[in-house]
């Protein structure tokens, strides 16, 4: 009986934690439908006005476009670079490999504001501030660790002999890489790409420094929105951001499950 009781307590506790984690996020949903001109809770009435505003005002829809482009490019760049880095790290002697890995993982550990401040001056000098390439490069720094970690995790479990096996069976080094190494690493590469996309898509600190009038991302636009307007558009944008993240994660989950 105590077993059943304690498991009930555990379930209740787990449920409470979930509610605590998810509820504030979900609270933006009702707020985005309010008829008032300011963010109010509880919301009053029901309107899709703020969503229409979001899609009609160029600074909002434009920032969504910028975010999407930056996130896709960041995912592509950091996945390519990160996979190559992970493969390179795998060739190093264990101890050196670990030290160099730590170096690449740093951006994950260092407070983002420090990375942002550090990147600002050289980027300004190179004319990368307020540009999409600048945002992509900056976000790649932040996203690389996710790719490296995900790909390395698979690489560590990989029996290196499979490449030798492929060679002995008639594959050139290139064919062995394309037909054996890459497909085996694919789940790690996909996971890395998804994390890279999301890292870039909802990143605000670095973007605040790097983004400018010509390249404002959605999170930066929301940040100014909440400071200067307190408009329920921000809530609508949050909902959209949430939906994009959920869709990406669900797709990823479906792919991984196969």
């Amino acid at each position, binding site marked *: 009986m105590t077993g059943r009781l304690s498991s009930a307590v555990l379930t209740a506790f787990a449920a409470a934690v979930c509610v605590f984690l998810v509820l504030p996020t979900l609270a933006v949903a009702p707020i985005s439908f309010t008829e008032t001109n300011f963010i109010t809770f509880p919301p009053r009435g029901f309107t899709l006005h703020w969503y229409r505003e979001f899609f009609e005002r160029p600074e909002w829809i434009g920032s969504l476009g910028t975010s999407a482009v930056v996130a896709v490019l960041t995912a592509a760049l950091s996945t390519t670079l990160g996979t190559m880095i992970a493969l390179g790290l795998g060739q190093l002697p264990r101890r050196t490999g670990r030290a160099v890995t730590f170096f690449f993982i740093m951006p994950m550990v260092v407070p983002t504001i420090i990375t942002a401040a550090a990147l600002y001056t050289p980027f300004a000098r190179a004319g990368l501030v307020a540009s999409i390439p600048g945002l992509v490069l900056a976000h790649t720094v932040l996203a690389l660790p996710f790719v490296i970690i995900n790909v390395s995790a698979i690489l560590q479990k990989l*029996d290196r*002999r*499979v490449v*030798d*096996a*492929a*060679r*002995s*069976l*008639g*594959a*050139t080094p290139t*064919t062995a890489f394309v*037909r*054996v190494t890459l*497909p*085996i690493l*694919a789940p790690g590469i996909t996971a890395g790409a998804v994390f890279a996309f999301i890292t870039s898509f909802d990143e605000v600190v670095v973007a605040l420094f790097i983004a400018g009038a010509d390249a404002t991302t959605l999170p930066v636009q929301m940040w100014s929105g909440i400071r200067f307007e307190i408009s329920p558009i921000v809530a609508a944008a949050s909902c959209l951001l949430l939906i994009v993240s959920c869709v990406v994660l669900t797709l990823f989950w479906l792919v991984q499950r196969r």
Partner: protein
Amino acid sequence: MPGAAVEIAGLNKRYGEFVAVDDVSLSIEPGEFVTLLGLSGSGKTTTLMAVAGLTEPDSGTISIDGRDILSLPPEKRGLGVVFQNYALFPHLDVFDNIAFPLRMRKWAEADISKAVERVLKVVSLEQFSDRRISALSGGQQQRVALARALVFEPPVLLMDEPLGALDRSLRDQLQTEIKRIQREFGVTVIYVTHDQEEALALSDRIAVMANGKICQLGSPDEIYERPNTGFVAGFVGDSNRITVSLGATEDRFRRVSARTAPELELLALDRTDGALEQAVLMVRPEAIEMSGERPDTDVNLLQARIELREFLGASIRFTLDTPLGPIHVRKGRSGPAAAFKPGNDIWISWSPTEGALFPPAS
């Protein structure tokens, strides 16, 4: 394709200071099954991988049917390789694993299906064609690895400890199967193992390796019955080792006496180089006779008391307390010796041809 001849000559490989392969030469006949037997670090796998093209030797030549292959990359050598832990492709199913070498050779899909089905039948895995590798048992994975290495009918099959990860009964079963399949394909096999029973059971010839060198090359019978060094005698099969002082030479035999019982004179085959004072006498446990009565001989005869009797199924192993120290004897379950019990005082003896003398450190 029938098996090809393999010729390894003067092969050397160092890793820094460590000499992995030290001047190894080996001629293998077409269709022969040769085993490289040795402990880890003896150079057996390095030698095998040099033939496969996956390790580059420092010097030496390797040729197949008279054609030098050393300059060819592994994919051009066309040899079948079965790796330790199989190295199957985890992202492909059984069929695609086995079809891999055929796809590399750009075969037509219809021919691929036919060839894969045929080899699946040979390894009795017809029903597993579309299974994922992770859904197979160790023994089944081993069979897939074998099928994948054989499907393109290579002239030579290289196997690196293929049964190392399996349990005893499965190994016995697969041993028989490997032997049968080898006969069926007529392929030349170079097989690497540290398991002497496996080597004895499978091979036409065994090359016992230690410290990068081949210590002895011969048929399983030769290796077992006439080991040329103490190392080979100790490594292949069980043996009693007794440190002895050397006495007079008589024909091919030598009189010796054990350090623990100097008054007792023994006679054994002399495999030392002569100039030594001490040697190790080796006697196989099954070569020693046990009897309750004093037998009609004076050669290598001594009294013993039975300390331990271990029933091993097909045989019984006795541990005896003798003037020479502890001695192991192995006897058939159904023989007269089976009745002896711990505490019995008995006589033991062995023919002088069953005892061999080796230099102490060899």
